[in-house]
């Protein structure tokens, strides 16, 4: 399987502005002083190997959207945040004519940042395409119609060209969709949210965002340890610091990098992708949190190493 991150930002898209771009350019040029960068190859090597990611790139600003490419002829995607716009353009570029396509979206929940991309998902306007929106909330259809109603958007949901179906799921049950086994899990978040464990050919990917973990102690009996057990990749909502998550932002429905590491270590997961980045954080801050999380994983490791990744828009991970 291949995981493509189209949107990794939490709560609200967070585009960078001209000042940020200028600051990156300035830092790159300062770091380039005294170096021989006479050819495109040496420039590429300098950018790719020597500049910090926060200078050479960006974690991106699109809200939640993650594709699980299982190598089948149907698309499997988690959430419809603003990143789904880029996913739609990617699909259109690959499939000409872009008709007869089948999409399966798995919804963590229907807060705005997780559905806002759908009105800009171009394949939804193409007759002949089939879009199945899977989820555990009873208000799936209502939420999607509301966001695309006047005066919020000029094209009503019911006027979209594709055939759109809503598929209700129950947490705890296993479903076979597009050649992949999917198990939803209820999470603590305002209005509830749901994580999904995708399994194919013995490999598992867990998508668990907008999920607060409320406990005094973490141990094997905590249900999420079982949900993450031996997963090849856990995509985890690490929006807040631990201190925020259990003090001023308690009950806001998000979790921390500390809890992410502890749960994935207990579950013996292989990789942890920090996800749903705080929109107030710039690239340097996200990079700092990433480095700190890698360090915490080292400090807290008890025999089993979890590889820590900080997800960014455009990241691809082969499972």
């Amino acid at each position, binding site marked *: 399987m291949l995981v493509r991150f189209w949107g990794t930002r939490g709560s609200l898209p967070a585009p960078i502005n001209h000042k940020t771009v200028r600051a990156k350019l300035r830092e790159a040029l300062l770091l380039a002083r005294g170096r021989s960068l006479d050819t495109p190859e040496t420039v590429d090597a300098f950018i790719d190997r020597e500049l910090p990611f926060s200078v050479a790139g960006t974690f991106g600003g699109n809200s939640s959207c993650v594709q699980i490419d299982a190598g089948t002829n149907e698309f499997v995607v988690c959430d419809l945040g603003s990143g789904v716009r880029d996913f739609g353009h990617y699909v259109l570029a690959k499939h000409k004519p872009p008709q007869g396509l089948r999409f399966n979206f798995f919804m963590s929940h229907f807060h705005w940042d997780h559905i806002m991309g759908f009105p800009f998902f171009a394949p939804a306007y193409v007759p002949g395409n089939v879009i199945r929106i899977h989820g555990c909330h009873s208000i799936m259809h209502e939420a999607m119609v509301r966001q695309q109603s006047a005066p919020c958007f000029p094209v009503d949901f019911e006027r979209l060209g594709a055939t759109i179906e809503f598929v209700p799921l129950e947490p705890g049950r296993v479903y076979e969709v597009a050649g992949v086994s999917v198990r939803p899990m209820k999470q603590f978040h305002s209005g509830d949210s749901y994580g999904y464990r995708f399994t194919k050919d013995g490999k598992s990917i867990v998508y668990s965002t907008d999920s607060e973990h409320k406990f*005094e*102690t*973490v141990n094997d009996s905590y249900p999420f340890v079982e949900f993450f057990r031996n997963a090849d990749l856990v995509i985890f909502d690490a929006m807040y*610091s631990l*201190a*925020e998550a259990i*003090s001023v932002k308690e009950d806001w429905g998000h979790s921390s990098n500390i809890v992410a590491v502890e749960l994935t270590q207990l579950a013996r997961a292989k990789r942890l992708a920090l996800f749903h980045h705080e929109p107030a954080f710039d690239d340097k801050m996200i990079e700092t949190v990433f480095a700190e*999380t890698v360090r915490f994983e080292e400090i*807290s490791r008890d025999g089993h190493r979890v590889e820590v990744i900080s997800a960014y828009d455009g990241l691809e991970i082969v499972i």
Partner: protein
Amino acid sequence: MQIEETRRGAILVLTPVGRIDNETGPAFQTRLLAEMGGGGATILLDLSKVQYISSAGLHVLIAATKQSKALNGRFAVAALQPIVKEIFTISRLSHVVPIFDDVTAAMAAWS
């Protein structure tokens, strides 16, 4: 877990020994919150003998900070070992829980 106890005037200094984690956290929290009693207590947690603190232990410190404020008491930690200090930084607990370099500094501040 072993918790050493000394009293310096009105200040109770508790010195836990070892790790504050899933195993030791619940009992440690019970003891710490009990010491806060009916309110107004001044408690300094000397962490000089703590080698590691997990999220369970950090929860305890947040709970103690909240309870102390609610009961008009005083609560702080002191003498963090390097690893524990790193965990305080990574978790941002240093923004929430008052920290002193050592017990002497806490005594001076509270005297």
